[in-house]
């Protein structure tokens, strides 16, 4: 039986390297997947431009952040990007409405097949991607400022006397809090407000919603506004937490879609659960358990191997595997999504 101190050390280690990053990443994915799923529920297509729209919103936020920093505005311990975020959201909303007006609306009026919309979203993806790279370049950008940590590993060690430190980054705290607020808001909106109910009705049964006098244009507009805002926020939180690079954002498409599908596409609750499922799977599978094991195992079982199930480079493979398993076992996802 390992000593209590070692067990605590193992626990702290796990919390610090799996739990906290998992919750953070999961929240980011959940917000992204929520956007995808809303678009899917109302407009009935998978928006492949999502990752690049996310990059667009983040880019605008970064540019405004830089400008704010240059004129000496700051939020003290909080990142300046929070002040710039509303601009990013507004720009993303405008972009989405613009795209809808000049691209998707036509196909709606033609009653095109979903795959035509998907194809159009590829075109949009190219254009937005090119635009983002043209404006801010293809390189890594960091735009975090303010206090880095809420709890520092060193202070935690001093406080508790444990070997292992527990650090909580400001960005992690912010991500979780903002995600929580947004999720509550989205559900309140969908369940309680007139526009939210109209969105659900339209998603459930388009013809009947028209017969009830629901204005489809308004529903579509509301959906884009919400999806765009969620997307921009998800992008900025991810960028603050890690860093901003257009290509990384494009690659986020896979875990985001996996989250939406695993949860049940078109289902807001599913998107959130899916986000955390994907994030935790990635963390748990790619974490090297060596130290964790050595704390808990008796002396004769100590190991020098990494005890890593899969190296970090393959984290995309994890979301993919989960996706495949879910599609095999339960094609509708955890919360029955729309599969037709």
């Amino acid at each position, binding site marked *: 039986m390992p000593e209590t101190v070692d067990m605590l050390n193992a626990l702290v280690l796990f919390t610090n390297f799996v739990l906290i990053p998992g919750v953070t990443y999961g929240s980011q994915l959940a917000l992204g997947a929520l956007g995808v799923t809303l678009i899917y529920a109302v407009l009935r297509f998978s928006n492949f431009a999502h990752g690049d729209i996310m990059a667009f919103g983040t880019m605008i936020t970064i540019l405004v952040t830089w400008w704010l920093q240059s004129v000496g505005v700051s939020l003290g311990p909080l990142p300046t990007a929070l002040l710039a975020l509303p601009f990013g959201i507004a720009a993303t909303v405008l972009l989405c409405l613009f795209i809808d007006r000049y691209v998707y609306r036509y196909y709606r009026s033609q009653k095109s097949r979903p795959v035509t919309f998907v194809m159009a979203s590829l075109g949009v993806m190219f254009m937005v991607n090119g635009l983002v790279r043209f404006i801010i370049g293809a390189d890594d950008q960091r735009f975090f400022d303010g206090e880095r940590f809420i709890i520092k590993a060193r202070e935690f060690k001093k406080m508790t006397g444990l070997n292992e430190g527990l650090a909580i980054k400001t960005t992690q705290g912010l991500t979780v809090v903002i995600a929580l607020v947004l999720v509550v808001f989205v559900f309140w909106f969908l369940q309680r407000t007139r526009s939210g109910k109209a969105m659900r009705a339209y998603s459930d049964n388009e013809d009947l919603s028209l017969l009830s006098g*629901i204005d489809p244009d308004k529903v579509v507009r509301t959906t884009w506004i919400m999806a765009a805002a969620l997307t921009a926020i998800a992008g900025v939180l991810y960028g603050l937490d890690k860093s901003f690079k257009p290509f990384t954002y494009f690659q986020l498409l896979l875990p985001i879609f996996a989250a939406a599908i695993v949860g049940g596409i078109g289902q807001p609750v599913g998107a959130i659960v899916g986000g955390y499922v994907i994030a935790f799977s990635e963390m748990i599978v790619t974490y090297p358990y060596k130290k964790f094991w050595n704390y808990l195992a008796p002396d004769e079982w100590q190991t020098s191997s990494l005890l890593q199930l899969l190296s970090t480079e393959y984290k995309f493979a994890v979301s993919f595997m989960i996706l495949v398993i879910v599609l095999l076992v339960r094609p509708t996802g955890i919360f029955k999504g729309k599969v037709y």
Partner: protein
Amino acid sequence: MFLIGENLRGGYGGADILNDCTIGVDQGEIAVIVGPNGAGKSTAMKAMLGMLDLSAGQVSLNGKDITTLSPQARVAEGIAFVPQTNNVFVSMTVEENLEMGAFLRRDDIAATRDMVFELFPILKEKRRQPAGELSGGQRQQVAVGRALMTSPSVLMLDEPTAGVSPIVMDELFDRILEVRAAGVAILMVEQNARQALNIADRGYVLVTGENRFTDTGEALLANPDVRRSFIGG
């Protein structure tokens, strides 16, 4: 008449399905459209709703020409429609379904909702359940209830009793009679011609998109030609 479609002619792009057919209903009255399969019964109703391109004829509501209005605009004018299938929001609760029915109304809908609950007590009991979890007959009640929430002057039903048991059918017809008593004009398309004509003040027998017989429900039921060809004995 309160709602009337006169000399309607039209179809879905191909050959005309409606050939000079006239259908109407007055307030506090039930009009039923019957006829063999493919006679254009549902099409006639869709024409009244504006879901069909008409090449000739006109539709008027309370003396006002509504031929060119979109289906949504007609809903706003007081016409409510219950489609034959997919007529409830399956993922929303019964209460939300009713609320969506009243989407265009900005006034207090509580009174109308209570009236619907009074008409269909089972809905009050199941108000918090998603409509998708209800039985076929209950769903049909939700569908009618949703349509009534606009406080319509005209209620159109497309085969409301398709696929429900005879008991539920009688029950539903009873409720429809109650709705009529409130002064609503009711226009139905029905497969179960005998039962429908029984409660009808006005009956239309359509064949190949034109009126074959037009009379009161009672008279049509008594007419031997109608009985032989369309009711079966």
